[in-house]
């Protein structure tokens, strides 16, 4: 393997580990990232001539640590001296230790990124940058934020970690569940942003769904006793299993109900089911386990040929009780329409109409339109489809909604 490829491979596998290790000692994520960038640059300069070191990761850590100490000495006041001394002490210990593996402190880094003192909207972007090394422009594109704005938000969040003294530690048992929720939310946000492009036509967003799963695997490995971490991974794997089935050969959007279960990825479904089983044995249900259970119920269609909608309604009942989320309420209304008819589903949607957030929320209008169409109210369905079409940004989904609207006109024309 050539030097660039080796450096790339080490960067991919070790980036977050090295940032976590360095930042956990100084609480300065930005300085850790800068030092690591310099270390990678040094590797690209030195390795071709001197050869790839036996332990590339340790080599990078040593160089980055020296850069960090140099930078700290340059701008140091008395108060800031302590973290630098810790770094120096660490280096001495390591030198004595020889080949000791670098401890994996990414979990601590993730808890710092998703700390309650960090604005919820920047937690997922921060994790993408600190743990995976994405730059502000790529993160901005995924979250539909201007690169400069995203850059500022990341800088501010890192300054907050450093200046507010946000700890790099895994919370104690009594606060773990609540704090873990924030970490899992941020990982799920990474994954769902990646889903904006399920066909994978844009490499950058396809990667983001994969990175979400990668982070999910990481946290499920680091916290194997946390049922919600397993639940989140199961949820993402279930969704990922249907990636290819969501598009026809012609690239058209295929809704879940019309998907051919034979096109679902069986290995991913099996893995998700096993995770969910392990999680449920711990007898501490939560939001992600319930959402994964809904997906599991849908996946069962590949075995039974039909969908157990009353089980899905029950799961959404439980989810709504936990989250009070309007998104859950919409999904629950759609499931109720399957068990008790379109009118019952519409009655569940009705009280949500006052929620101002829904004015720009496409799935609400699409769900409403479909239920109105089934209830025979074609005029109101057409208006709701129009609204959904105008709010959708995915071209394939927009084209699907437009076809549904046209179909509505056909049906109406033929019944007159």
């Amino acid at each position, binding site marked *: 393997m050539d030097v660039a490829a080796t450096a790339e491979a080490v960067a991919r596998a070790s980036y977050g580990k090295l940032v976590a290790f360095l930042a956990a000692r100084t609480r300065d994520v930005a300085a850790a990232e800068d030092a690591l960038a310099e270390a990678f640059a040094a590797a690209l300069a030195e390795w071709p001539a001197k050869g790839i070191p036996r332990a590339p990761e340790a080599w990078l850590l040593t160089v980055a640590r020296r850069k960090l100490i140099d930078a700290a000495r340059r701008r140091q006041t008395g108060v800031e001296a302590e973290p630098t001394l810790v770094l120096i002490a660490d280096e001495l210990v390591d030198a004595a230790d020889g080949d000791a593996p670098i401890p994996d402190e990414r979990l601590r880094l993730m808890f710092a990124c998703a700390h309650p003192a960090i604005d919820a909207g920047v937690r997922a972007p921060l994790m993408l940058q600190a743990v995976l090394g994405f730059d502000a422009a790529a993160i901005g594109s995924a979250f539909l934020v201007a690169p400069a704005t995203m850059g500022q938000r990341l800088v501010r969040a890192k300054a907050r970690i450093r200046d507010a003294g946000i700890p790099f530690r895994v919370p104690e048992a009594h606060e773990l569940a609540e704090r873990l929720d924030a970490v899992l939310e941020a990982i799920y946000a990474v994954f769902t942003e990646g889903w904006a492009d399920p066909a994978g036509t844009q490499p950058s967003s396809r990667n983001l769904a994969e990175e979400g799963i990668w982070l999910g695997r990481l946290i499920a490995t680091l916290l194997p006793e946390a049922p919600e971490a397993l639940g989140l991974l199961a949820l993402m794997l279930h969704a990922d299993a249907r990636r290819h089935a969501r598009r026809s050969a012609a690239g058209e959007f295929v809704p879940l109900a019309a998907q051919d279960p034979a096109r679902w990825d069986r290995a991913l479904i099996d893995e998700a089911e096993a995770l969910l089983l392990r999680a449920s044995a711990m007898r501490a249900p939560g939001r992600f386990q319930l959402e994964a259970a809904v997906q599991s119920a849908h996946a069962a269609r590949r075995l039974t040929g039909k969908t157990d909608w009353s089980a899905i309604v029950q799961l959404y009942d439980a989810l709504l009780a936990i989250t009070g989320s309007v998104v859950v309420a919409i999904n629950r209304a759609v499931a109720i329409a399957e068990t008790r008819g379109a009118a019952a589903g519409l009655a569940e949607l009705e009280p949500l109409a006052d929620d101002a957030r829904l004015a720009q929320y496409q799935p609400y209008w699409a769900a409403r339109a479909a239920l109105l169409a089934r209830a025979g109210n074609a005029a109101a369905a057409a208006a709701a489809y129009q609204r959904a079409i*105008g709010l959708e940004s995915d071209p394939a989904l927009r084209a699907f909604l437009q076809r549904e609207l046209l179909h509505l006109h056909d049906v109406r024309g033929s019944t007159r």
Partner: protein
Amino acid sequence: MQYLLLIYANEKAMLSAPKEAASQMMGAYAAYTEAMKNSGAWLASNRLRPTSEATTVRNPNGRKSVLNGPFAETKEQLAGFYVIEAPDLDGALSWAARCPGAAHGSIEVRPVWTV
């Protein structure tokens, strides 16, 4: 804040698009404009006729010149615009991403200079 969304597209490709695709695009734009109006973001919008019908005027030092064609030859041409009200740039970007033109061209988002 007010933002101008400038829609740039390859007008040759647009003008030669099959009838079905063109009518799908028209429908998508109509729904997009309606959704903007319904949520109170819409201030103004229009589609522009092709750049072949553009005329460019300059008047440096009183030496007038009138030329056929657009200000600059580019791969994508200005095809239309929206003026919207959005709470911030993030809000404006989310409308820009929904614009049917974003699927094949580009949408430039510019804050309007307020005095």
